[in-house]
């Protein structure tokens, strides 16, 4: 049974159809990439999965439909969403941001352990834990956003364009950390515009255009596709 199964998903904003028909599947522990240009429906797809917008079609997590789940209950099911633009609680400290990621968890010892895990993954956050999160650089803020989502201890982590607005030096670091998170056993669905980096780390990749899935395959297959090479990789 797949961890996440999305089939023939539709999302519309008023009359505008943002997603016409998208089908994707994430198995336990997989790292799946979703590529596509601006406006292809990538962010909308993640928002539909975390139930912050309404959608139609199959949307199953561990064989149970997500449709009847209230948005704030999605975390409890095991899905954590690291949103586009990071959306940190900018006036709160780094530590408080991370602690809020563990809002639903009652076991303090476990939360401490996960905090330690985040600090190991991103050592710079340990030094900056008392700093107001808005004073951090873009890359560091992205680390807080990823760390905050990890604090919910997800089985499936949704990452929305983690590489946007980040210095090239930190970008590699962010992608390395994403691989590390996967090695620790968390399935990841990452939405990106940076095709090269995504193809480097993902097991399988879906390509979205105009709200439809136009390609799917292993990273190697997609990287070898003529159309993808021309449009996305600029080969």
């Amino acid at each position, binding site marked *: 049974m797949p961890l996440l199964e999305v089939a023939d998903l539709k999302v519309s904003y008023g009359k505008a159809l943002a997603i016409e028909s998208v089908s994707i599947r994430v198995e336990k522990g997989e790292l799946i990439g979703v590529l596509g240009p601006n406006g292809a429906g990538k962010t909308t797809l993640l928002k539909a999965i*975390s139930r*912050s917008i309404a959608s139609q079609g199959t949307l199953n997590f561990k064989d149970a439909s997500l449709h009847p789940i*209230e*948005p*704030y*209950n*999605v*975390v*409890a099911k095991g899905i*954590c*969403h*690291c*949103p586009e633009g990071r*959306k*940190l*609680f*900018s*006036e*709160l400290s780094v530590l*408080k941001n991370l*602690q*809020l*990621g563990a*809002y*639903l968890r009652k076991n303090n010892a476990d939360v401490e352990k996960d905090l330690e895990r985040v600090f190991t993954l991103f050592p710079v956050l340990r030094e900056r834990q008392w700093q107001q999160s808005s004073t951090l650089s873009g890359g560091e803020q992205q680390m807080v956003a990823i760390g*905050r*989502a990890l604090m*919910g201890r997800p089985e499936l982590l949704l990452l929305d364009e983690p590489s946007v607005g980040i210095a090239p030096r930190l970008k590699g670091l962010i992608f390395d950390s994403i691989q590390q998170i996967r090695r620790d056993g968390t399935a990841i669905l990452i939405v990106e515009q940076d095709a090269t980096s995504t193809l480097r780390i993902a097991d399988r990749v879906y390509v979205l255009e105009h709200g439809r899935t136009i390609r799917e395959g292993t990273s190697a297959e997609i990287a070898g596709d003529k159309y993808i090479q021309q449009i996305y990789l600029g080969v």
Partner: protein
Amino acid sequence: MLQILIYGAVSSAIYAMLAVGFTLIFGVARILNLAHGSFYALGAYAAYVLTSLLGVPLFIAAPLAVLIVAGFGVVMERFLVRPLRSSQLAVLMITLAVSLAVEQALFITFGSEYRNVPSFVADKLSIGGVDISGQRLLALVAGVLVLLGLWLFIQRTRLGAAILAVSQDPEAAQYMGIPTNRIFSIVMAISAGTAALAGVLVSPFLTVQPTMGLLPMVKAFAIVIVGGLGSIPGSIIASLILGYSETIVAYLISTSWTELVSLVAVVVTLMIRPSGLLGRRAAF
């Protein structure tokens, strides 16, 4: 001099209790609640009904009155404000409608005559030669304790952190598993409850009558504009400024000039610093 210091502190504490709740519900839920003064009036009337009509002992009546009004606030938010939340203007109009409805309901039920609520503390105290009623002093102490308690609640508890999170980014808060609607209800209860407490505390020494909510509403609005809409520290500082300026004006010039202070403060603030002392953005 000492008299100004003490009386100014009492006014400031009452204003702060009113303004903090008003700014809190705006900061968290973006509700500009024009019915905030109604909570204050309802608090005073609830205390009047419970003590004078039903003979409930004061120290039970006071918290009961606060709870009743907090419940009223929650119901108002849930059934009248929430369905309209997508439009700020609609929220403004519905809360204005509630405040008018409350005022009329009080008129019809109790008439326009002044009602009396017995004092919690009958004794007068003398501090450094200044006589002050125990009731005013109680309002001051209660105000300081409530604000301190609220600050600790928001800064130190898990629920407080959730309130801060929702005020800064409701969407991100939802991604953390924070039920934003429930947070709105809780904050509304706190907001209505603190306003009601202010009404209960002043009811023995101010007049209890149906329109009593209007002036505090104007003051709360003025304080929040001066302090910065959505900023709790800002509203406390502005409460102190306004409370003391009014007291000083009352002593040096005349009490009939005091109502002008808040209006001047609003005009000056909007001209010089539209976002208020500690506000993040222009309120209007």
